């Protein structure tokens, strides 16, 4: 197990000294290979706080974590000798709106910044920049360009390339597709899915888009008021009770499937996760 949380709680300090409990007794374990996970939950439910623990940007105020064999507790004394750098390298975290964090003159320098920070030499960092830019679906000509003259979607890709160049084992992205048009969103999701399948890396995505959850993930985590209330199969997640209790949006595919089954008594049972599969089944049934 690459990441293991045991009863992790986190309390933010506030000006009125009351504090705010952002995480409450979270137990979760994540493999270092081969998982494609989505993390969902309402605004303020603790999603971002949770992933910031996964690379130890935040440390628990109660409970303990083990990240790639490094133990982190809630006691600052015990954490004093913890080396955080290896964790940050192994668990790559891409913040929301990473495009605002681009700052170098060229895309290449921006991508090289992370690996160089972790002690990679110039030549190796250059090589990794070339590989990373290809992974996010941009050609090498982008390396010489200024990051500031790129479109929103391109900037996002460059900042993701910057994290990939650090060669993390686990890639975590906080709402990576928000603000992108449908084609840009699909293209970026494909990038993540390819990283997951071709490099067998674990990818974890925070999203509000239930279609993404249903089409891509094999595991979904649901946060609610600081608690992890669901950890499992996306197909089972969207049952009536869960949808009502947790204010979930139903994925378009499920909504349409259920409507057609009810209205036209069509048999759409079995696994239909995406548009292509649904269309294929409907053609078979109706032609």
């Amino acid at each position, binding site marked *: 197990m690459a990441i293991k949380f045991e009863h992790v709680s986190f309390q*933010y300090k*506030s*000006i009125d000294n009351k504090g*705010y409990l952002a995480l409450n007794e979270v137990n979760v374990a994540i493999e270092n290979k081969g998982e494609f996970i989505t993390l969902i*939950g*309402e*605004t*303020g439910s603790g999603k*971002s706080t949770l992933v910031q623990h996964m690379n130890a940007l935040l440390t628990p105020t109660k409970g303990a974590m083990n990240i790639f064999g490094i133990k982190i507790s809630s006691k600052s004394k015990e954490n004093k000798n913890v080396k955080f750098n290896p964790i940050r390298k192994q668990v790559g975290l891409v913040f*929301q*709106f990473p495009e605002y964090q681009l700052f170098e003159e060229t895309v290449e320098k921006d991508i090289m910044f992370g690996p160089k920070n972790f002690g990679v030499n110039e030549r190796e960092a250059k090589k990794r920049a070339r590989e990373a830019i290809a992974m996010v679906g941009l050609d090498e000509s982008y390396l010489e360009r200024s990051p500031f003259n790129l*479109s*929103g*979607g391109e900037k996002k890709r460059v900042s993701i390339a910057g994290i990939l160049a650090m060669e993390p084992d686990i890639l975590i992205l906080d*709402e990576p597709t*928000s*603000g*992108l*048009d*449908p*084609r*840009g969103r699909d293209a970026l999701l494909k990038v993540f899915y390819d990283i997951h399948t071709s490099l067998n890396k674990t990818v974890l995505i925070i999203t*509000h888009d*239930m279609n993404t959850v249903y089409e891509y993930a094999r595991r979904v985590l649901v946060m609610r008021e600081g608690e992890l209330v669901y950890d499992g199969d996306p197909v089972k997640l969207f049952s009536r009770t869960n949808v009502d209790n947790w*204010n*979930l*949006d139903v994925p*378009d*595919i499920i*909504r*349409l499937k259920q*409507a057609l089954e009810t*209205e*036209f008594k069509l048999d759409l049972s079995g696994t239909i996760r995406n*548009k292509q599969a*649904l*269309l294929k089944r*409907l*053609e078979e049934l*109706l*032609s």
Partner: protein
Amino acid sequence: MNMIEIKNLGFSYQKDDVALSDVSFNVQKGEWLTILGHNGSGKSTLSKLLVGLLKPNNGSVVVDGQTLSEETVYDIRKKIGIVFQNPDNQFVGVTVKDDIAFGLENLQIERDEMLKRIDEYASRVDMTDFLEKEPQALSGGQKQRVAIAGILAMQTDVIIFDESTAMLDPKGRKEILNYIKKLNDVGVTVIMITHDMREAVLSDRILVLKEGHVLKIGPTKDILLDKETLESSNLELLLPLEVMHTLEQKNINYPKLKEFLWQLSLNT
């Protein structure tokens, strides 16, 4: 009656890099117009031109009979408000309350009225409990609700929502959309910039932008079904309409199914 008249609008951020060219359209009083387009199509540039945050290279913007210029921009901002995508870029106050008050202070609203409006609009976006909190203590979606309350409190005739729901969770998104609906019902002119087709469904007309020019403008129903136009601007058909389109292509025709899919797409 036209609330907004846009004629031959053109804008470039840099020489040889045209962001908008020859854009013309009208928005009627009380209408809900959706502006759709891919990332970089000029949607946000257009909204900034409408409120005078940018100055056009060519063409004109007329709001409620007044031509937008350096002299009229402050008058026009009393009539037209804008809510942006990223709330972090629009926070000015030390507390949520201050932030909602900011726009009202600019309009020189009296204190009693100001306090009344702050309470009223904070409660409409469900942020009453947060009035004394610092903006930094809020999550992205909560910040956005505050930004929306700030604009609503100014009670302008026109509100532009520039991808304002893009960062909200599903519940927050629905709440805001319902509220926009209510605003539109009482006569507020709504211009909604989005690439979410589920939001476009709610409007009266849709304008599709592509690479800085108007690709098409028409009644919502016509544009929703126009696969070619939508896809050429990186957009997608709503799922039920995509199904309808594909079945038609395969010569599978069931009128009842077609009607059902259409109704379903209007209720997403």
